[in-house]
């Protein structure tokens, strides 16, 4: 048994033990991108409780650094929906052009919004949501990641096979480099950038200073998104074409185990009981993967579920009173 696999099992076991002490409660919010709605799913019963209508096409979300505002981007509706993360009640709508992927900088100073259809990356003031600077970047800005010191944001440009680095202090583009076919998910990990290549069969590891590819890691065809487990012990990668969710050692980037997840696995959130909740883009469902057993339970939601947000502390009773 390899060291990585032992660590993996330990992490899963710890998660399971923790769940025995505090059984998962709470709510999950799913962005149904082709049905103009948000599904609210009960974490206890694994059933959809309600569906919140939105204008057009919700894809991704960002939680404000103080945890008080959950922003959901309605891409074609050109709106940010400001929701209460505890009840999912709508507080206000903010007019923003083409909000696809979005995220607050770790220091909360900026909100970066990728305009996927309009080839632009907008930097907003994190407090006022006023536009600070727009960067026209061709083509198809997709996912984003910040440097831990909030000084730079890195954006994948899906249709031009590039990653661009933006300096948030000088508001200039530092570099834009070819990294491989159709880069999608991106993450800062161990002072390197890890990029999922949807047109290839794995990840590219980049030097964040120059954007040069240092090595490639094979995970499976159509690598799309990557997530670090809350305990930072496992890097999870979803492979869209292979239909797999793969666990990697975050230090060595070696594969620990691969799970078959059909239906176009996309975004992941981690439940306190150690299970992964994964949106299945083409299956109108969520897959709840138990990494200890490999068993998968599915939960029906709306058409083309994409982004997924979990609040284990949210309460269904509060939800019904507020929505």
């Amino acid at each position, binding site marked *: 048994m390899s060291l990585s696999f032992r660590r993996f099992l330990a992490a899963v076991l710890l998660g399971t033990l923790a769940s025995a002490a505090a059984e998962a409660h709470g709510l999950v919010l799913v962005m149904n991108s082709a049905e103009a709605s948000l599904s609210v799913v009960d974490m206890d019963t694994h059933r959809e409780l309600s569906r919140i209508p939105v204008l057009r096409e919700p894809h991704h979300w960002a939680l404000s650094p103080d945890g008080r505002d959950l922003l959901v981007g309605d891409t074609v509706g*050109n709106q940010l929906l400001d929701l209460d993360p505890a009840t999912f009640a709508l507080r206000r709508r903010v007019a923003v052009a083409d909000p696809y992927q979005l995220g607050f900088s770790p220091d909360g100073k900026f909100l970066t919004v990728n305009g996927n259809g309009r080839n632009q990356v907008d930097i907003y003031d994190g407090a006022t949501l006023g536009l600070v600077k727009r960067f026209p970047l061709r083509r198809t800005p997709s996912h984003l990641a910040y440097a831990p010191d909030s000084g730079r944001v890195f954006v994948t440009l899906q249709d031009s096979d590039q990653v661009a680095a933006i300096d948030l202090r000088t508001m200039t583009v530092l570099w834009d480099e070819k990294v491989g076919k*159709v880069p999608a998910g991106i993450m800062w990990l161990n002072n390197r950038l890890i990029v999922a290549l949807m047109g290839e069969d794995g990840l590219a590891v980049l030097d964040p200073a120059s954007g040069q590819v240092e090595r490639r890691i094979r995970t499976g065809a159509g690598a799309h998104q990557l997530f670090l487990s809350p305990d930072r012990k496992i890097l999870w990668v979803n492979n869209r074409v292979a239909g797999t969710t793969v666990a990697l050692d975050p230090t060595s980037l070696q594969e620990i185990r691969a799970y078959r997840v059909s*239906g176009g696995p996309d975004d992941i959130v981690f439940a306190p009981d150690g299970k992964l909740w994964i949106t299945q883009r083409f299956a109108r469902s969520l897959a709840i993967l138990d990494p200890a057993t490999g068993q998968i339970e599915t939960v029906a939601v709306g058409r083309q579920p994409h982004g997924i947000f979990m609040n284990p502390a949210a309460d269904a009773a509060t939800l019904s009173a507020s929505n």
Partner: protein
Amino acid sequence: MSPTLPFDLAAGWLEEHVVLPALYAVGLMNWEEVAFGWALFAVYGAAQVVLTYAVCVPLERWRPVERWPDARAVTVDILYTLISRVGLLPFITYVMFYRFQVTLNGWLTDNGFVPPTLEGFFPFLLGRPALTFLLYVVILDFSEYWRHRLSHVFDWWYSLHSLHHAQRQMTFWSDDRNHLLDDIIGFVWFMGVALLIGIPPLQFPLLVLLLRFIESLSHANARLRFGRLGERLVVSPRFHRAHHGLMAAGVASVNFGGVLPWWDMLFRTADFSHDYVPTGDPTAEEALATGSYAQQQWAGVRRLARTLTGREPHASAS
């Protein structure tokens, strides 16, 4: 269970097991997201064809208006239907419309305008998808009435539209029989209106399926009427057949409505008096009626050229 679930799952299966591996193999994974839009269109389009076939074929056999010893002219209409509902056309129109909508509405948002949507005009519609869709249907059908009517007013436009009217063996397959240039004009027209009211292309697929079914049914070679009241609520095969009548080809036509006959009644172009008239366009050359797909398209271009150079007679009723 949601009634759209089987269609969505079929589209998902198509995307996951056919489209994605193909895109990956040829290095076009950047198209994977819009390809799912096509997969949905294709599945719903195929469902439209199957539903229409299942209903209309028995009807046409049970109570045909006409019987033809040789129905080869119908074959090309099947090709039109497949291209229009399942194949390339939905993909192109979806991608073009989507991209244009994102660009235009994003630009409007940047400049301080709220992009128009029906739900924006009437906020109570948000969260009432069925009612919202019905309003979209009424508005779009009104717009289609005028597009169709104008295609009979302008000679250059009718020279393209005459391909649709040239069919003497009209069946439910004839609905999609259009010249490509006429289709493009129709798409631009639709896009203009859809952008004005902010129509979401994939939000109401099942109801779109139903509407396309009504349009196909209205072309059926079947003695079918909906009764005195029903004919005034929804376009029937009898009502629409009058529009395709020999006497009505060209500028003097009647019954332009696609789904709702209300606009014909409102603008005094409705004619409920005719019973199952023969169809066709006596002013159209034979290739437009019985040629192959390519021959029909080329004949349409020739007729357009003749019209633009003043060599085509005025397309009035013969």
